[in-house]
């Protein structure tokens, strides 16, 4: 009875801390501006099915795509076994599902073992890619320190968890053969049978201890991992699904027209240019044009930031980055997440929103990075879960131009030319037809 109580407490604590953190992240995401996304549900479900569940964009890079799918399938299916472990833990049974599934149970356990090995292989390949091979996007400045450690920790934890599962099965099958009390004969062990020689020499009592240690290591490991995920880039395993569902369905080249600006332009072009809008008593302070800090972003931008797993395909495809500019779309997403976490922590400490004198633009992202962007959408296209770094970049530029009138000289002169003679260069409109005279 005591192990069951300990397990129940452990499980509830793990699940409870996790739920608390999820609630906190949800609150942080909705610190962003409201944005209504509820059109075209059929297309959105399809996107989620294809891009998140079907991994359609992962496989554009076959090596990473293949091994990622191994871990992805392994993770989802092995969760069925985790469910059994939880039920065993709560009820004190051993291999709870076995009597109900019969021969299929043996197939499942065997299949999970094969998956576990494939996951271990994939993790080792990824560890090699991250640490030994010279893949440029894993060695960029924003990947130094915690992000690098984070990536490695996830892979190492997964190897340990899968290892515990296999060792647990190895001890279990020996105990089953010896007819040890409580160890019902169930499961097939295509992989862990090779680990049997390492454990076969032990006394039955010692083996039971081993089997229990691996069992507890597996489930505690999973609970720890569960609570590590929301603090980590690995959170994409959950947020990839809503993120693809809510992703932009419009043509990528189409930038939104700011409604506040349209109102002004309509007033100037159409109606009485001297008319002032009706003063409204309940109108708050005028809204900021564009984005200076994370709370100026909309909730989808913040969901993007929490969904990012820092794979770096965006930066790898970015023409600005490729030509040595400072811009890295991945860093934009990482900065956004770091800043919204900071704002959330301030809120927790003070109990109300506070002004800490820090902002996303300026303290995290520099103007030089923003002006390096060509708005080509390569980053948006490359993202395996449809994250949109360009939307954040664009809205910060809007802030720089429309609130602070800050632009590099070349851009200022382009503005002047468009304004004065209707072309980005200093040519008069009268010369537009010159090419016609040069014909024939």
């Amino acid at each position: 009875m005591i192990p069951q109580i300990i397990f129940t407490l452990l499980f509830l604590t793990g699940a409870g801390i996790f739920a608390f953190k999820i609630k906190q992240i949800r609150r942080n995401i909705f610190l962003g501006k409201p944005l209504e996304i509820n059109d075209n549900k059929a297309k959105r479900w399809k996107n989620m099915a294809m891009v998140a569940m079907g991994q359609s964009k992962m496989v554009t890079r076959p090596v990473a795509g293949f091994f990622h799918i191994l871990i992805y399938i392994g993770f989802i299916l092995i969760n069925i076994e985790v469910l059994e472990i939880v039920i065993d833990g709560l009820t004190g049974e051993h291999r709870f599902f076995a009597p109900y599934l019969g021969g299929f149970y043996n197939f499942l356990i065997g299949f999970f073992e094969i998956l576990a090995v494939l996951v271990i292989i994939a993790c080792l390949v990824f560890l090699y890619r991250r640490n030994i091979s010279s893949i440029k996007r894993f060695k960029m400045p924003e990947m130094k320190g915690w992000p690098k450690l984070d990536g490695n920790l996830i892979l190492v934890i997964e190897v340990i968890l899968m290892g515990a599962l296999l060792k647990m099965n190895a001890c279990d099958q020996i105990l089953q053969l010896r007819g040890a009390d409580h160890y019902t004969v169930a499961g097939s062990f295509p992989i862990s049978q090779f680990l049997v020689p390492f454990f076969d020499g032990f006394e039955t009592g010692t083996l039971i201890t081993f089997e229990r240690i691996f069992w507890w290591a597996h489930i505690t490991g999973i609970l720890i991992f569960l609570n590590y995920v929301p603090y980590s880039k690995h959170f994409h395993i959950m947020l990839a699904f809503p993120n693809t569902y809510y992703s932009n369905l419009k043509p990528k080249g189409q930038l939104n027209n700011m409604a506040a600006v349209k109102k002004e332009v309509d007033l100037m072009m159409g109606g009485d240019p001297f008319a002032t809008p009706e003063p409204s008593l309940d109108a708050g302070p005028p809204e900021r044009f564009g984005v200076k800090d994370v709370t100026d972003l909309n909730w989808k931008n913040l969901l993007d930031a929490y969904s990012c797993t820092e794979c770096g395909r965006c930066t790898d495809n970015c023409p600005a980055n490729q030509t040595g500019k400072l811009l890295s779309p991945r860093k934009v997403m990482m900065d956004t997440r770091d800043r919204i976490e900071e704002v959330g922590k301030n809120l927790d400490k003070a109990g109300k929103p506070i002004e800490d004198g820090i902002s996303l633009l300026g303290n995290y992202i520099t103007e030089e990075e923003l002006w390096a962007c060509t708005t080509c959408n390569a980053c948006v296209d490359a993202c395996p879960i449809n994250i949109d770094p360009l939307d954040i970049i664009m809205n910060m530029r809007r802030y720089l131009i429309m609130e602070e009138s800050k632009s590099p000289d070349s851009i200022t002169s382009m503005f002047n030319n468009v304004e004065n003679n209707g072309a980005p260069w200093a040519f008069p409109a009268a010369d537009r037809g010159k090419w016609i005279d040069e014909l024939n």
Partner: protein
Amino acid sequence: MSTPIHVPTMAQMIASGEVPEVLFWVGCSGSFDDRAKKITKAFANILTQANVSFAVLGSEEGCSGDPAKRAGNEFLFQMQAAQNIMVLNGYDVKNIVTGCPHCFNTIKNEYPELGGNYNVIHHTQFINNLIKDGKLDIAKNLLKGRK
């Protein structure tokens, strides 16, 4: 290559009581940049040889506002858009073929919300349609092996 190339402006067309099938939106590069002008001239030639009734805006065409928008100057963009839409709607333009890919995106995707609704296609699509419809006689094998 026999027909001399004639490029009327929208103003001239309307003045003579004609309505062109399609407006050729040249764009700033196509108007001012020497290399891009070659494309403009070649496309005008193709339209002429295929007997397409077309016109340009000439000095009434203005920057679509795209460079301003992408640099963050939404106000300047919307001012440009409003002016262009006023001209286009004034001529009751229905079909637009663009020389410039940036104008293509802006007029097709960003103008409708601001009151400019047109059928917009890129000049490469237009040429493709001409070939498909048999309006442009291209010698067999002319494009073979070329990309």
